[in-house]
């Protein structure tokens, strides 16, 4: 489990798919809930070289945790704007992994077509009639404008990752301060889906580290967190 490199997976769905295939499970919500722990384990052990990549893995972690949290907290409603289910996403992904393998197989056969090779041409000066210097200036200016987001691309992803880490720290501090606290209190009254998921991520991590202890008074009751 040590020295996991996320780069060896082509993405979070690839990691998830491999975990499910390893256990020879079908793609459904029960299987997904079952491999959630293993998925998070990979994430925790992973070296994070690229924040973009980590953000993608965390998005899927959030979906997994939401799925799992629905089995623990049945009162937790499915939130609007849910988007495609993880199950549907993984099935579609698997289909295209297969298609990609087909493509690789076809490419390896070397059944290529070739275009006509143009004969060497002798350059003759033929300027376009209406082109002026300002057209060149405008074209280059447009290229620069289009490049800005490409160059600044990583910033947004870094911000996403940092915010998740900050929230985890905040929850850890909250639990440390109070002897006992409810999950509802941790996530706050007007929690967004992301907040709930991030809180749950922190919760699992703390339980795993045996730093806290979770009690549930009844089958659908509130979760109470206590310091060990």
């Amino acid at each position, binding site marked *: 489990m040590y020295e996991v490199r996320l780069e060896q997976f*082509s*993405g*979070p*769905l*690839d990691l998830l798919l491999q975990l499910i295939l390893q256990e020879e499970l079908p793609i459904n919500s029960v299987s997904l809930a079952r491999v959630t722990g293993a998925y998070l384990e990979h994430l925790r052990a992973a070296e994070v070289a690229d924040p*973009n*990549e980590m*953000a*993608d893995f965390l*998005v*899927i972690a959030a979906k997994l945790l939401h799925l799992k949290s629905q089995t623990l907290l049945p009162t937790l409603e499915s939130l609007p704007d*849910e*988007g*495609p289910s993880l199950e*549907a*996403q993984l*099935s*579609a*992904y698997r*289909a*295209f*992994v297969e*298609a*990609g*393998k*087909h*493509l*690789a197989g*076809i*490419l390896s*056969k*070397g*059944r*290529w*077509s*070739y*275009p*006509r*090779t*143009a004969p060497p041409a002798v350059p003759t000066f033929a300027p376009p009639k209406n082109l002026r210097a300002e057209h060149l200036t405008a074209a280059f200016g447009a290229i620069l404008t289009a490049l800005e987001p*490409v160059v600044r*691309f990583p910033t947004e*992803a870094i911000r996403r990752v940092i915010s998740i880490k900050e929230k985890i720290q905040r929850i850890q501090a909250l639990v440390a301060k109070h002897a006992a606290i409810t999950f509802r209190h941790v996530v706050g009254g007007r929690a967004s889906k992301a907040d709930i998921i991030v809180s749950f991520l922190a919760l699992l991590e703390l339980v795993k580290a045996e730093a806290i202890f979770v009690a549930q008074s009844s089958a659908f009751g509130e979760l109470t967190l206590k310091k060990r």
Partner: protein
Amino acid sequence: MKKNLVEKIESLLFASPHPLTVKRLASLLECDPDEVTVGIRELQEGYRARAAGVRLNQVGNEVEIVTAPEHAELVRGFVKDETTGELTRPQLETLSVAAYRAPVTKAEIEAIRGVNCGLILRNLMIRGLITSEEMSGETRYRISLEFLRHLGFSSPQELPEYERFHGSEVIEALLSGAKGI
């Protein structure tokens, strides 16, 4: 149809050092794009029927004449060898989505792959394996004619199980909610 349209299309495609769009052909031939499309189909059928040494390939609106893939080894021996270069798994996944789901948006590719695909799409564009076009305000991607040549098909529709992947219900369900990541 205009007189000799099929033969004229053949002349132009043969003379052009690069692929031509249906629109450009229509403007050169001073006719309707639909007529060009019919002419292209006829030329394509003709090549196929006589198992010609050449094929007419089409991706989206772009067409080109190329050598038949059956004779790849023979031709490879004497033209400047071009290669696809090594393709990583993420690249193959992205290419397969672009091949089967074209014309496809970045958001759709990302919904299927679960990762941000900005850099990988850029890289595939630079390598000339995919192309993009603006369609009603959105950028949409397809595999390029160059990549199609390496596959040895005349159009993406000839890919194995095209119907299954192109119109798959699983994928439709997924994409109806796709907003990218």
